[in-house]
C-alpha cells in the first residue's frame, strides 16, 4: 500500500506529511533549546559575576575562558555546511545525482570537522580542569554545546544514511528521495541556526 502525501501536499495542511512532521519535530526542539537558553539567562541574571570564579581565578568575560578563534572557525564550518546541504538538494532537483554525492559528502565532512574542532576545544578545557562541576557558567556551556554536538552527530548519521544505503531510493522513487533530502536539510539548517544563536550568547556576550 502506498503511503499518501509523502511528496504531494495535503489539501488541508498545504504541505506534505514529511514536511509537517519535521516542522513539528523542530518545534519541539525549539522548546528544548529555548528552555536551556532561558536557564542560561536566569543563571546569568542571578549571578553576581559572570563567568565568575574558574580554577581559582575570577574572570569577567567568557571570551577569556573560551576559545573564540576555534568557535569562529566552527561557525564558518557550519555556515559552509548549510550551503553544501542546500546544494545537494538542488542537485537532485536538477537530476544531477553525481553532484548530489559531492555536496552531501562535503556536508558530512564539514560536520566531522565541526566535531573534531569541538573535541579539541573540550580537551583544552578538561586539561585545565575546567569541568561542568566547576561553576554555573561551565555547566551551562557544556550542557548547551554538548546537546548541540549530539544534534550534529544525529544530523551526520542521517546524512550518511542518505549518502549510502538510503540513496538506493533515487533509482526507484527519485521525487520521494529528493523530498527526503529537503527534510534532512531542514533539520541540518535548524542545528546550524541553533549554533548561530549559541556562539554569540555563550562566547561573546
Amino acid at each position, binding site marked *: 500500500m502506498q503511503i499518501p502525501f509523502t511528496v504531494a501536499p495535503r489539501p488541508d495542511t*498545504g*504541505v506534505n506529511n514529511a*514536511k509537517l512532521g519535521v*516542522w513539528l519535530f523542530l518545534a519541539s526542539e525549539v522548546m528544548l533549546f529555548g528552555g536551556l537558553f532561558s536557564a542560561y539567562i536566569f543563571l546569568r541574571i542571578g549571578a553576581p559575576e559572570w563567568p565568575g570564579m574558574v580554577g581559582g581565578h575570577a574572570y569577567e568575560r567568557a571570551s577569556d575562558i573560551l576559545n573564540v578563534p576555534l568557535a*569562529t572557525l566552527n*561557525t*564558518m564550518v557550519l*555556515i559552509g555546511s*548549510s*550551503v553544501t546541504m*542546500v546544494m545537494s*538538494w*538542488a542537485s537532485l*532537483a*536538477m537530476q544531477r545525482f553525481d553532484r548530489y554525492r559531492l555536496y552531501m559528502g562535503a556536508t558530512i565532512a564539514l560536520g566531522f570537522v565541526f566535531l573534531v574542532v569541538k573535541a579539541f576545544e573540550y580537551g583544552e578545557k578538561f586539561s585545565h580542569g575546567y569541568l561542568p562541576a566547576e561553576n554555573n557558567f561551565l555547566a551551562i556551556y557544556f550542557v548547551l554545546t554538548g546537546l548541540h554536538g549530539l544534534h550534529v552527530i544525529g544530523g551526520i548519521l542521517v546524512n550518511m544514511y542518505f549518502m549510502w544505503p538510503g540513496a538506493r531510493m533515487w533509482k526507484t522513487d527519485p521525487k520521494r528521495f529528493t523530498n527526503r533530502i*529537503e527534510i534532512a*536539510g*531542514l533539520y541540518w*539548517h*535548524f542545528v*546550524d*541556526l541553533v549554533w*548561530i544563536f549559541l*556562539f*554569540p550568547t555563550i562566547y*561573546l556576550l
Partner: protein
Amino acid sequence: MSLKAFHIVFIAASALLSLGFGAWALADGGALSIAAAAVAFALAAALAFYGRRFLKKVARTGYIAGGRL
C-alpha cells in the same frame, strides 16, 4: 517553510552574526581583533551577496520556483 526559504533565513542570520562579531572584535581593540573585524565584515558582505544571488535564483529558476517559498 521550504528548505530554500529556511536557507535564506539562515544566511540572513549568519550575515547579522558576522556584523555583530565584527562590532564585538572592534570594541575589543588590538591589531589582531581589528583584522578579525575586517574579516567578519567581509564575510557579512559575502553572505549578503550570496543570499541575494540565491534569492534571485529562487525567483528565476523553475525547479526552485516550483512549490511554496
